[in-house]
């Protein structure tokens, strides 16, 4: 019988245990072993194990300051690690492995990339973005070490607050970008309906809608010769971001009274141009389409919840030539 078997046997057989204990006071059964190890008081254990219980109690006693000396370092390591893991949705595992970037880095890179592609980075650097967009750009770019001005000192009349397109698209946006025109929020549905039902096509359709939207101030369709593109000709410059909105207008999905309508009532093309001018590519889009607003460059960086996006997308939506251009595609 091996030592292992012997020990196992003496713990499992009560009769053997009693017999052995009569000769050997150190014999223990399973239950007593567990109780001693679980902290049974020395007064309650077999006498031969009283010192063992005292020693184990001392080994499990209260902590000493030197044992906790590394707390500061460990907690600092925890804090440093935690600062790099914001509570953001995790990217796809494969993407994460490929990029070897953390979620916040990816999010920051995406926003910075969007700004760069749209020319918005330069605009942000000069503080010429609308207030809300400038605020976001400043906040995000600061995480990657790029300092840009805060919104309130350079945003002028641009909106400084963030909001949804449904609730903020009517007032400040139209007022800041559109010099004249019917009151906001009252012509969205008629204009959208007109865009869907008018028999005109191409530049004529754009001019019709633009004129209706701007109360006759729109001159869309009068510069097609200078722009070098004929009526209904495809516009070479892509309409970044504004395409969806423009399609909404021309495709019949426009929602009455929303950003589309508000911006339409606010003066259409000029509003879009005002927003688009600082952005790369928008001037080309305007001239090619007869002064209309593909103007969507602001949309590239603008979040759907920002007022800045409202004005930009509104300008794109109402521009008659833009509609005509898209109709020609």
């Amino acid at each position, binding site marked *: 019988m091996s030592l292992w078997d012997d*020990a196992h046997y003496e713990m499992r057989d009560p009769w053997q245990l009693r017999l052995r204990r009569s000769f050997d006071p150190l014999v223990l059964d399973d239950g007593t072993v567990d109780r001693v190890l679980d902290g049974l008081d020395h007064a309650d254990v077999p006498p031969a194990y009283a010192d063992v219980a005292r020693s*184990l109690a001392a080994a499990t006693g209260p902590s000493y300051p030197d044992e*906790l000396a*590394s707390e500061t*370092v*460990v907690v600092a390591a925890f804090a440093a690690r935690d600062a790099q893991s914001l509570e953001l949705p995790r990217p796809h595992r494969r993407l994460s492995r490929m990029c070897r970037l953390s979620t916040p880095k990816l999010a920051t890179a995406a926003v910075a990339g969007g700004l760069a592609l749209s020319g918005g980075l330069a605009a942000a650097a000069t503080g010429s973005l609308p207030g809300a967009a400038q605020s976001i750009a400043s906040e995000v770019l600061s995480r990657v070490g790029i300092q840009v001005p805060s919104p309130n000192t350079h945003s002028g009349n641009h909106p400084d607050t963030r909001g949804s397109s449904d609730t903020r698209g009517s007032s400040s946006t139209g007022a800041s970008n559109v010099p004249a025109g019917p009151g906001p929020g009252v012509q969205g549905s008629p204009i959208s309906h007109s865009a869907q039902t008018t028999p005109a096509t191409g530049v004529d359709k754009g001019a019709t809608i633009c004129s209706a939207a701007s109360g006759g101030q729109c001159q869309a369709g009068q510069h097609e010769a200078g722009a070098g593109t004929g009526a209904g000709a495809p516009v070479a410059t892509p309409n970044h971001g504004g395409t969806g909105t423009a399609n909404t207008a021309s495709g019949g999905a426009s929602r009455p009274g929303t950003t589309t309508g508000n911006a339409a009532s606010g003066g259409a093309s000029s509003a879009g141009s005002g927003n688009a001018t600082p952005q790369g590519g928008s001037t080309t889009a305007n001239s090619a389409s007869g002064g209309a607003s593909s103007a969507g460059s602001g949309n590239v960086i603008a979040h759907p919840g920002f007022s800045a996006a409202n004005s930009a997308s509104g300008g794109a939506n109402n521009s008659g030539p833009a509609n005509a251009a898209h109709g020609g595609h």
Partner: protein
Amino acid sequence: MLGLAFASTLERAKSGDEAAFALLFRDLQPALIRYLRVISRTAVEDLAAETWLDVVKGLARFSGDEAGFRSWVFTIARRRHIDVLRSMSRRPEEVSTEDDAERSEFGLQDPVALAAEDKNELETALRMIARLPPAQAEVVMLRAVAGLSVAEVADVVGRRPGAVRILAHRGLRRLAEELAAKPGPVEV
């Protein structure tokens, strides 16, 4: 042990609460240090720090109760200790000679160094446990000081529960014999 407060403390720590993480640290660190002092010969503080760094890295992915958390932390500590032993085995000039083969295998602390430390009850107790055969000493520390169950200790040390029970039994018996023979501080 944190008991009922453990679940909420863990969740707060996983969400980045430094105070909650400090609570977890203070609750486990003494037992961790004492366990490492018994099974490791050197660099106890470094081993503990490396263990906690691994805990920091893996905390977000951890899920389980307090016993599972303690098992996880001590498993990490044991692996760090084994890593140190392996690295030392690749650098034999740093390994001092040791008469006791088992003690050398597990890297138990030198009794001479221990005798020079404070002679309070804790030190005496750890010294006596460290004199046990390494496998017995480790099981006794994990069961009594770390507060793990037989099954959890079996998972940590990679043995069957029956073997853990036997080691614990023999460890206690030998400890009783040692204490009866040498009730005072270890004389070297």
